[in-house]
């Protein structure tokens, strides 16, 4: 897949139209070509990647959440997030949509919309911050997962699947805890130190990515 398209596709779950994202990334690529100085002897990709990611981040900062999501929905999403926290603390388990709706005096559909908006916000605010110090693309999971460098070896030994190996360490860990250890999202959230909503989003995205990767492998192989 071409570089710009590949970088843009990282943001495909944000609800932004893919065409727009690809366009932003392509424009950034053109910019990078203009500015690239071959004399500097650095690889073009190591120069272009941070430029393109930077443009995509700027696009999100300017256009995405604050522009596309109505203020009322933004506020509702914040309230729903708070209610989930409060209800979880109170009962020791993840609440239902109905419980959230009752607490906030909303209907089910309003809560579902807010949950979706909250996840999109989560995606843009967290994932936009994952360019490494050297400019290489990096997922948030890579930094958070670093506290346990031996994890991968301990958990998987040498048998780690090549498709899974391409995922960020923290994503792999969350998948392992969910599907192999059969932990609940709330338990995983506690263990990994992120919100249950975030665990939910990572699992949903990772499974979609995995399915695609497996399909690609089947076609290639």
């Amino acid at each position: 897949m071409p570089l710009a398209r590949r970088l843009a596709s990282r943001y495909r779950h944000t609800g932004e139209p893919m065409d727009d994202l690809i366009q932003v990334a392509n424009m950034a690529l053109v910019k990078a070509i203009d500015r690239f100085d071959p004399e500097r002897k650095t690889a073009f990709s190591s120069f272009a990647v941070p430029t393109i990611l930077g443009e995509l981040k700027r696009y999100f900062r300017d256009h995405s959440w604050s522009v596309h999501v109505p203020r009322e929905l933004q506020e509702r999403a914040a309230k729903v997030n708070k209610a989930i926290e409060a209800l979880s603390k109170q009962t020791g388990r993840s609440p239902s949509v109905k419980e959230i709706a009752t607490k906030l005096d909303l209907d089910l559909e309003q809560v579902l919309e807010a949950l979706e908006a909250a996840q999109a916000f989560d995606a843009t605010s967290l994932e936009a911050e994952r360019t490494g110090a050297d400019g290489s693309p990096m997922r948030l999971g890579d930094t958070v997962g670093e506290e346990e460098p031996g994890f991968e070896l301990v958990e998987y030994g040498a048998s780690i699947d090549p498709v899974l190996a391409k995922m960020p360490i923290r994503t792999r860990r969350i998948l392992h805890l969910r599907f192999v250890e059969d932990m609940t999202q709330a338990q995983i959230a506690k263990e990994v130190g992120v919100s249950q909503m975030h665990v939910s989003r990572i699992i949903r995205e990772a499974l979609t990515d995995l399915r695609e990767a497996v399909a690609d492998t089947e076609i290639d192989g």
Partner: protein
Amino acid sequence: MSEKTAPAIQMTVLSSPENIAVVRHGLAGLAEGLGAAPDLVDDIKTAVSEAVTNAVVHGYPGSVGPIDVEASVTERRLEIVVRDQGAGIQPRPLSDEQTSLRVGLALIGALSDEFVVRGEDGGGTELRISFDLDRGERGEVEQQEHLSAQSMPGENEARIAIRRAAASGAAIPKVLEMFVARADLSIERLSDAHVIGDFLSNWTSQAVDSKPLNVAITDGEGKVEIRIGPLEPGVGTRMLESNALPGLGNTLERITDRAEITRTDTDAGPAEYLVLELRSD
């Protein structure tokens, strides 16, 4: 039926008030999947609400019956048909109810780009509502063929048929999440439902044949059942096995409380269903 009306998705629900949100939410997902601008999605939701409310309140006054909803997409147009087999439009003096009906229909007319009402006394009512997808933004879609009609849905059931198209697949997670919410399952199960929805959506988008995928969703006390089929023998097993992901085992079996293949004989020969169930934790 002319070939230009060819549903990308067809949904059948019983005319209970709580199903209004199911249809609205599902079609909102479809519209979003088609790249409709947020304002247009809002208009579509309002119009759909009014149309389905109309069928619930006026189609089957004092009783219940099936409401068929079809959504077809031609080049730049989304056409939604809401049909009931109820009382039909009756020529009688304006009651309060009739006034509210008029307000509802006027609202649909105002929000849509084309609106046709068909109905006669005792013969059911059909509302045909069209939206120009370019109003606001783009819409990239493919031509659809006609889907077969579905039978009467059970209580708390929505029957959905989707064709191969990324856009029609977008409605599935939305309808599913509404059922999970209604059944009072936790937001973790909601997230599991999203994964199932994504899988079904992905499956239809990759399908090699052009047959529609039929999905019946039912909610009961603390559980939601998703019945996929009828499928050709072997297809259900293939669907289930496609969720075995490297290093993780079968993810679909893990997130559901029941994932099994049931086989039956139909008029058209043997068929199988993939039945999934989510229960409260």
